[in-house]
């Protein structure tokens, strides 16, 4: 999670659906309509780093300036990523889930989403999933023989394909450490 962390940058570039609460002049290029204003209630997908700010910062609109709380520029719509369908799939069997196909940066995104909405349920689901999948990752990582990847079974290769980027780093670290340990034990 550094400034130069490429996965962090990629995760921030993921697009989320949102709806504009204002007419904004000159922003039409966002929906492929350059030079024109963007209309109120227009639905489009914007990268997370942008909606993250736009959904929090508001402006004083002309029509209802009486409203105390300024309405944010955009309103985030529930994304497919955290649809009940996905959460139920996670709850029913986290280890068999192809997380990479849902999103390669699922954990980072879910974490940011939970921060935005203080979503306790999502973070609980996330924690349970992390522990359950972590077990599986650990088992795969420590059962690999010390002679590199040549003995990797088809089974574990398929499993690795389903990992999210964060889980991959965990797998890699655990695996390297385990290999070092085995090497040391043999050399003694």
């Amino acid at each position, binding site marked *: 999670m550094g400034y130069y962390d490429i996965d962090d940058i990629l995760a921030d570039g993921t697009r989320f659906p949102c709806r504009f609460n204002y007419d904004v002049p000159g922003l039409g290029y966002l929906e492929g309509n350059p030079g024109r204003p963007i209309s109120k209630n227009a639905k489009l997908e914007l990268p997370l780093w942008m909606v993250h700010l736009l959904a929090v910062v508001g402006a004083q609109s002309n029509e209802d300036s009486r409203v105390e709380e300024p309405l944010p520029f955009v309103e985030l719509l529930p994304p497919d990523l955290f649809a009940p369908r996905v959460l139920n799939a996670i709850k029913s069997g986290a280890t068999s889930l192809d997380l990479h196909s849902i999103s390669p940066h699922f954990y980072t995104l879910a*974490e940011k989403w939970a921060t935005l909405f*203080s979503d306790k349920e999502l973070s609980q689901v996330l924690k349970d999933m992390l522990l359950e999948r972590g077990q599986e990752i650990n088992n795969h990582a420590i059962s690999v023989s010390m002679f590199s990847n040549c003995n990797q079974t088809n089974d574990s290769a398929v499993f690795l394909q389903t990992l999210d980027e964060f889980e991959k780093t965990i797998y890699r670290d*655990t695996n390297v450490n385990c290999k070092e340990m085995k090497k*040391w034990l043999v050399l003694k």
Partner: protein
Amino acid sequence: MALPRDLSIGFSPQEIQFLIENEPTRIMPRITTRKTKKQLAKDPGAQWSLITCDDSTVNNMVAMNSCEVTLWLALLLKQQGKCNVVVPSWLTLQQLEKYLDFELKNPSRFSNLPWNWLVVSSLLFARCSDDFQDPVHLLRSKVQDLREVRLGKVNKGLQYLNESHLQLENLSLMEINEMRPYACGIMDKLRTIHDSSNDTT
């Protein structure tokens, strides 16, 4: 950093071995390095001494009088046939049997083996197998059993990780280091997830 990733997140087994080799070990020297006044008076050239940081024991060894030196020095002297290592008291068949018994009877606890048992036992098995009272192959298999039982417990315990704490009672440095990348990575993530929805600011 320019350090390889696996070195920046933990120790390598070699580094841990290096740390543990600094532990004091009891040996029976076969050489005498202590010099009497008479000797020195007779031959001033005999005033040589081994250069070490802490030379009090090294330069005061008397043959067949036990003394304590660091493990690496003990192994070096052993290699040159200048001493016998006094095997630590926990490294006997009887004692290991007790530890193993404890491990099997308490599925959720670890026996209080020394913090460096894995490294010390494997070093001693490899370098001074003739100093043991018990047959080394039996000791070796007992240590292997212990390791496997404990490894199983560690892996079982990993599914109960949480974001705030982890109990590591009686685990040796090597065993902790073995689980470090996994436990640290998962716990760190659990913590950030936990913080994300419980924003206190």
